[in-house]
């Protein structure tokens, strides 16, 4: 009876949505097992390289990995202080 009501009432089933959302999410999360360490390693090494030449606040390096269907994007966001702040930093140290 409920099924007939659903058919005629146009109520949509939510379980298929749940299933699809989970499949997509878990495919990404399983891939990330261990990959979070990769990002941390990348962050530390990039920080090391850039710090040789520019004074950096270690907290101002942000690394993100965005997974797409065919390619993924590695986004590295480094905030470099301008020269005024840089000379201040140099003077303080």
């Amino acid at each position, binding site marked *: 009876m409920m099924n007939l009501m*659903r058919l005629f009432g146009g109520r949509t089933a939510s*379980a298929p949505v*749940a299933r699809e959302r989970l499949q997509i999410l878990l495919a990404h999360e399983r891939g990330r097992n261990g990959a979070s360490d990769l990002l941390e390693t990348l962050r530390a090494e990039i920080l090391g390289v850039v710090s040789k030449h520019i004074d950096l606040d270690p907290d101002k390096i942000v690394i993100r990995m965005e997974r797409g269907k065919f390619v993924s994007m590695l986004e590295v966001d480094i905030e470099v202080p301008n020269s005024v702040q840089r000379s201040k930093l140099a003077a303080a140290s």
Partner: protein
Amino acid sequence: MAKVLVVTSGKGGVGKTTSTAALGAALAQMGQSVVVIDFDVGLRNLDLVMGAERRVVFDLINVVQGVAKLSQALIRDKRLENLWLLPASQTRDKDALTEEGIRRVITELKTKFDWILCDSPAGIERGATLAMRYADEAIIVTNPEVSSVRDSDRIIGMLDSKTVRAERGERVEKHLLITRYDSARAARGEMLSIDDVLEILATPLLGIVPESQDVLKASNVGSPVTLNNANSAPARAYMDAVRRLMGETVTMKVPVERKGLMDRLLRRRAA
């Protein structure tokens, strides 16, 4: 040969403690000697669900710290003489549980019992990792609901990497126990179906426990559901699960009335 089983889930409130009590009692009802251990330090509840809350004197932490002997801390069930409980501490010093201490306790219990059931706390922190640490097999309790399935997936990953068996290159045998299942709602496409959950988690099914008022009734009076109402649907589901654990082949059925042809057709359409 004693078997160490962890009952785990990641998410809280899915029925770990209820299931530990019911499975432990069911194993004991089948003549096995069983101890159930509560690993939820600070928030112990297995004693309450089993109706032994007023008999707790010593606990797991006391034994780990050497304050009490194992024999002093173990509580024998009043209804089943081969069912025992090792309660958790209600004090909050979680760090008192050490890996070495747990190893010693479990090694000693293995000489005395056929089955050691570890009731894991929710989460993925220390308590949960210690509860699974020495497990031979794991029962992952899952509700057919997105957050529970996601957390179960996470726990399955941990069972494959953070247990002693995994580190030795061996396998922790995993079983999925789906609880609070409502076949009517699943048939209408309002709840993830058993097939959905199995496909997503890719773990063998141990049993399907239907949503039932009998579960609450049993915990209200402090009696595992398999003892409190052995003929109820959840009790039968737990009994079947235990037979499968013991190696019997039991036909898997959703423990409610069979659906007609119309429902099955529509269920396929909804899935």
